């Protein structure tokens, strides 16, 4: 990289924002980063080899999704996949007189903002409330469906509170009524088994130890959608642009690794998470866990620490990479829309901390983090 700026070392406890790249993924990408200009769409032998690598990666991503490789469309990330799914389906459905989109109040901004856009184009957006743990029930979704419903979008795992939605049951409710179902699985992919049921699934590589800059949308065969980008006809015309082979190869490798070690890794990470939660409760007995205690991403904690300013706590602990909300919203003022949807007040939201544990987090790091957080919490709450 230019300048070779040193990369600061910290204990990375922000795996919901992004994850460190797995060295095995880097190894798989390396030849393609160095390859002589291999454009997978070029009709020359270098191009053919690149196309072969691309198709292998597509099969790897498809396998972890329980999908057919033909259903995988590469994108630049989950944001683009969500934009493509929401706008692509809703705009195509309008021609058939369907203009109603059902989603939840705790979706990622890359779902909510396209919804607002669609609303300005004349769609009716129905944002369903969630229960206290952030859970959406299949019955509530079914009750919202009308003959004019074009799409239902419910995320598989929430990026702030880690809540896992019952997407298989929601998918079934949608299938019964012939309504396409989309799930934003950016956080769930590679961390928990995806039940394979959604018609459209958004995923990205950098949340599962792959490179940023690539994602995918699974589009079940027979689902019609309008492309967002127009151009050279790549990805079945749904997503033009030269596909970055190295990134796709990295994504495929990351998916294969995640698939192979998901169950064991999930258990290990959940144990570290539970240990940390126990330690934090000991230091701050008023601590409240946000999100569902059981139906939850293995590495995620989101806690309200009454009376503690989360930003100040983070600033006091430069050794730890933590979050007070979603990374993408951090440039933006205002409390988390997810926590507000759970019924927390703005003050409680400002006292909330998100912790994300991942593949390379060690027991020693979690212990160190528990010590630092406990000390800081005691000193923050000492004056009260």
């Amino acid at each position: 990289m230019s300048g070779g700026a040193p990369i600061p070392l910290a204990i990375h406890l922000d795996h919901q924002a992004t994850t460190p790249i797995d060295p095995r993924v880097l190894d798989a990408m390396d030849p393609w980063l160095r390859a002589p200009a291999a454009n997978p769409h070029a009709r020359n032998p270098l191009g053919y080899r690149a196309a072969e690598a691309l198709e292998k990666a597509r099969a790897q991503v498809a396998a972890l999704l329980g999908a057919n490789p033909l259903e995988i469309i590469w994108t630049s990330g989950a944001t683009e996949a969500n934009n493509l799914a929401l706008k692509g389906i809703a705009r195509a459905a309008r021609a058939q007189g369907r203009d109603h989109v059902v989603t939840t109040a705790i979706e990622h901004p890359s779902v909510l903002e396209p919804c607002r856009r669609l609303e300005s184009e004349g769609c009716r957006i129905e944002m369903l409330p969630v229960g206290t743990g952030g859970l959406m029930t299949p019955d509530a979704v079914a009750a919202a469906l009308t003959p004019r419903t074009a799409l239902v979008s419910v995320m598989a795992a929430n990026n702030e509170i880690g809540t896992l939605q019952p997407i298989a049951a929601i998918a079934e409710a949608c299938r019964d009524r012939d309504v396409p179902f989309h799930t934003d699985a950016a956080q769930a992919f590679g961390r928990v088994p995806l039940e394979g049921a959604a018609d459209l699934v958004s995923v990205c590589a950098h949340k599962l130890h792959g490179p940023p800059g690539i994602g995918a949308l699974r589009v079940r065969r027979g689902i019609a959608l309008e492309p967002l980008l127009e151009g050279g006809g790549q990805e079945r015309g749904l997503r033009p642009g030269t596909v970055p082979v190295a990134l796709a190869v990295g994504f495929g490798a990351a998916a294969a690794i995640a698939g192979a070690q998901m169950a064991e890794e999930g258990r290990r990470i959940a144990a570290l998470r539970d240990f940390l939660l126990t330690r934090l409760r000991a230091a701050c007995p008023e601590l409240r866990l946000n999100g569902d205690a059981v139906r939850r991403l293995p590495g995620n904690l989101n806690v309200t620490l009454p009376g503690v300013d989360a930003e100040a706590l983070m600033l006091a602990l430069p050794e730890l990479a933590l979050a007070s909300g979603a990374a993408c919203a951090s440039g933006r003022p205002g409390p988390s829309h997810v926590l507000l949807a759970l019924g927390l007040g703005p003050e409680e939201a400002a006292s909330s901390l998100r912790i994300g544990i991942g593949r390379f987090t060690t027991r020693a790091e979690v212990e160190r983090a528990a010590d630092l957080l406990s000390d800081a919490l005691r000193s923050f709450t000492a004056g009260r």
Partner: protein
Amino acid sequence: MAAALDLVGNPSSVHAEGRAARAAVEGARAAVAVLAGADPAWIAFTSGGTEANNLALAGAGSGRRILASAVEHDSVLQAAPDGALLPVDRHGVLDLGTLDRVLAATEGPALVSLMLVNNETGVIQPVAEAAAIAHRHGALLHCDAVQAAGRVPLDLDALGADLLTLSAHKIGGPKGVGALALRPGLALSPLLRGGGQERRMRAGTENVAGIVGFGRAAELALAELDRQHAVAALRDRLEAALSARAPGTPLHGAGAPRVANTSCVGMAGVPSEVQVMAFDLAGIAVSAGSACSSGKVKPSHVLAAMGLPAAEAACAVRISLGPGTTEAEIDRIVEAWTALRARRSAAA
């Protein structure tokens, strides 16, 4: 770039890791801005040239009539489906008189999309002149400079462009990253929404390693500019040799100003697909038309717009010289080309 792949942070996170990633992205943005001759605050990174072209046309062109030259890249032509196509002359150069007349006859605001360098022929378009005409008529000008970066000096102001598209992988950087440079103050409606990155011009977690690679490639591309006369000498050597071996060999676009590295050569009666395979057996990678129209063999819309009959257009290949191309390699291409031509005429 490999080091940047190891950067743990999400550039939007506020902790130290996030700030390191942010610093890397902003360093790269500055380098790309220098390459484009643009203001770093007005550079939005995208997933590549295709997205940047789509963003320019959809984001600045809504409510405007889109006018594009007939030789634009597919990502412009497809994004401007009801736009009028502006003709080019037989050398592939935009007809400025027609542009002026079409703009004068256009009601309401317009956006003109004109590439700086054509991807099939290397022909350089009179972008600054076109921009002056566009602005005189109150139109915006978008310039797809994907093929131009590192081959001709770029300067947003000098070109008069309101929007300018760049792609990393055309300048030796990684695939999966591009940029749109904007004239400061230009209003743009985003294509991807949600997250507020890139000053709300383009949502999505930044492809940090890709962007860092792009920044480094931009620095190297600037240095490449000095070598262009040497590359041109090699290209001229190639074309002179082919013309000497086979007088009358069509060199498409050679009558117009071109970038140094591109030669679009016809071989009468030999389909370009056959040439590609034959060159490959000789260890030389050339291209039939543009790479994007993957799989499907379709005649080049660029050569057609230059007035070439379909039969002739189907027999052209693009030879692109790289920074590492040597004289010995040029001689090998000439030999392979001559041998193929001799074989085919003997068979005919």
